[in-house]
């Protein structure tokens, strides 16, 4: 049985009126992998680590391809991260910061699990 927890991730700037868009059931994401969702015309990479979920943009600024959802997830000193499948740079899943190059950062999205459904926040 999968235990459902609700874990909204606090985005960088407080979102005043977050609307939530349901993208898929949590069970659709194999633990420790990612999927990509189209939310409000943006490609969002959503990762599941255990039963926690994280969302960042799917665009990899190094290869300029939309592929981050297909990277390997893991942690660095406890901080969850994903490695780009193309050139292997890694990104902090909480802040979007790139570990190898501090000048690079990807966008982070609010994400939560409600009733077994993964929802991505759209700022109003």
């Amino acid at each position, binding site marked *: 049985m999968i235990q459902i927890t609700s874990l909204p991730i606090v985005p960088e700037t407080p979102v005043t009126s977050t609307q939530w868009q349901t993208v898929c059931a949590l069970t659709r994401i194999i633990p420790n992998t990612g999927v990509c969702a189209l939310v409000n015309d943006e490609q969002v990479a959503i990762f599941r680590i255990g039963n926690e979920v994280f969302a960042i943009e799917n665009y990899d600024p190094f290869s300029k391809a939309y592929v981050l959802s297909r990277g390997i997830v893991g942690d660095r000193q406890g901080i969850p991260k994903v490695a780009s*499948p193309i050139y292997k740079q890694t990104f902090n899943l909480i802040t979007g910061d790139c570990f190898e190059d501090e000048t690079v950062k990807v966008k982070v999205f609010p994400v939560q699990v409600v009733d077994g459904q993964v929802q991505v926040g759209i700022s109003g």
Partner: protein
Amino acid sequence: MTKKNLVVIGNGMVGHKFLQCLIDKGATDDWNVITFCEEPRVAYDRVNLSGFFSGKTAGDLSLVEPGLYHENKIQIHIGDKVDRIDRKTKTITSTNGLTIPYDKAVIATGSYPFVPPIKGKDLEGTFVYRTIEDLEGMSAYAKQSKIGVVVGGGLLGLECANALKNMGLETHVVEFAPRLMPVQVDEVGGDVLKEQIESLGVKVHVNKSTIAIVNEDGQIEGGKVHTMRFADGTELHTDMIVFSAGIRPRDELAKDCGLAVGERGGIIINPACQTSDPDIQAIGECALYENRIYGLVAPGYTMATVAADHLCEPESNQFQGADMSTKLKLLGVDVASFGDAFARTDGSREIAIKDTVKGTYKKLVVNASGSQLLGGILVGDASAYGNLVQLVQNAIVLPPHPEDLLMPPREGGSSFSMGVESLPESAQICSCNNVTKGQICTAIQEQNLLDIGAVKKCTTAGTGCGGCVPLVTDLLKAELKAAGIEVKKDICEHFAYSRQELYSLIRTHQIKTFDELLDRHGKGKGCEICKPAVGSILASAWNDYVLTPSHAGLQDTNDAFLANIQKDGTYSVIPRIPGGEITPAMLIVIGEVARDFALYTKITGAQRIDLLGARVDQLPLIWKRLVDAGFESGHAYGKALRTVKSCVGSTWCRFGVQDSTSLAIAVELRYRGLRAPHKLKSAVSGCTRECAEAQGKDFGIIATEKGWNLYVCGNGGIRPQHAQLIAEDLDQETLIRYIDRFLMFYIRTANRLERTATWLNKLEGGLDYLKQVIIEDSLGICAELEAEMAYHVGTYACEWKTTIEDPEKLQRFNHFVNVDEPDPSLMRVEERGQTRPPYEHERQVVAR
């Protein structure tokens, strides 16, 4: 008390080093520091400028930590040049019209590339190689060029030739002198270097003096470079020219304000780096010390340190000239020159070895009695450089036969090896940054440094040319050993084990999943290093389907989607074509699939067919058609057996002595899908003519009159290495048995991403030991190895077949989880009747 003004002119490598020294000394509290930087960006690493072509950005090359100057209240005027120094009023004036009084000034204006006064030198398509802007210009122009010429065969010229070659141009080097690198190497060395560089496809023309450069119409003005004319009457057609004919110090400011300059340029300085005006110092490539310009960064750094020391406490440190030892890798060829390389010391003698087989040249210069090393030249193999330089600098007494220093350890006899332990504390290990052994050891001890990255960061040793890294690593190992700390072989922060250790843990404890291993032997959640490594071990050991949920997250995207990811996020599809043999009917199926899915089609280097540009959502559809027609996964995406290449052998070939194609097919089918620490390649040739290039493979087989010869541990790629003969005239059954053992032994013992060649190079005892293990069964493990392989062969299943039969698995093959649409960002342009992804510059056009 008002602070005094210190104006630093030039923010290049040395100018920045000087500012860094001031900051380190806290001198920025006593001085108002104002610096002028003519280039549009702060100091960057010119030494590694060529890295710009391999993708480094201006940001990567920058030497200045963001905010550093600001925090230390250093005023910097970027993009502004000092035009005049007025020594009467003690002011400087800049192009942007600033006039600033100084109490002390430092000139660090560097040098400019010398362009010989050849007619036509200003035609479009001529360049120099000094700044990021120069490189940007070159790389834009190279796109419309096919041929490039470098004028000047010195250090920089060869580096520049490398850049042209990497940009895909036919590359020529034109040198006026009778040999390459006339400053660093002697005649024989120059010859060996020329041979080596020519074998890499760069054409070298020595003894060539260019008299004119003309455009298409034979004119020296207007239009683009077209032809070079030489004094000997010959001509060379080219599309672009880069001048690298030496540097000239930028001493114009000094000259104009009446400071003493050398006859051939350069601002004359004393050992305190002062010019003829004691309030003005000069450092770096613009400075002339004892009639010498130092065109390297290390002496410039020393000057910067001296100048900064002197400013704070006059009568301190003095500049005493500097060592011009250099070691470089030019176009992949090692070249080093150190100390008295040309035997100019009275009574000195030379010992030289030229090996035309290996393409190496090594020369030592020793004193009259042969007891001390004075200098030397190494071409083709400079691995001894670090040690030899230490022998020179520390005047260490040589062994009775100094020539042994040039030889690899001889069988039986012991070679004279100089461990880092025997060096004095004062020995300079890193000459780029002037770091001594004592400083490195202290840092390691006091700050408990455990890896080379930390040592580099703390001491700066190894962060320049990188030439000293092996020595620094040895020091670190020695220190750690002395402290009783075991040298870390951990694969990453999540497992305190090496790959071999993980392999045996998995096998002995029968561990079947990553989570189980992490639970029992690791910590954290894993990462992109340990997950694929463990995934590969699990696959080698248990041959489970790689996409079962417990394995899915371990795989690199290539393994996760059973295809090779390409630069735009699409994938390539390579069906297995065992031995390269394919029926016309099957070939037609490939053609039809490629046509129907508009895939770019290309024959690979390994006798199969690559279909590129498949979107994630198309992969299962494509594979369904291929699998239905009888194709299997080619595992081109995995660290696994790739192909067994073959020639047509005795079936068709008039020279063939055995049926190489049939054997290749049998071998490929046996080992297909075998996961390994790295990819595995093989080939079978039908006779000694070796058309299948079996000796370039991880394991290669060549037919003989009596059976098969087996070669192991060869590879192509970055560092080609020939495979070595391990057994001769084998019958097929014995051959397969040996290969089974060989592969399993490799899988058991190699490091992550270590190919067989590297593995063998590191294996203690080398090929002889390998023979004992595999042929004589010296470890008594051969039965086990064979059983492990039998298990693999027995449980093999085509991953693609398994995948397309399972609807749940297929869910993953969608770009979006919530809408049924492909990735909208993908674009295609047409070329030669097929489509390919757009290059960056085409992207806007395509997107319109």
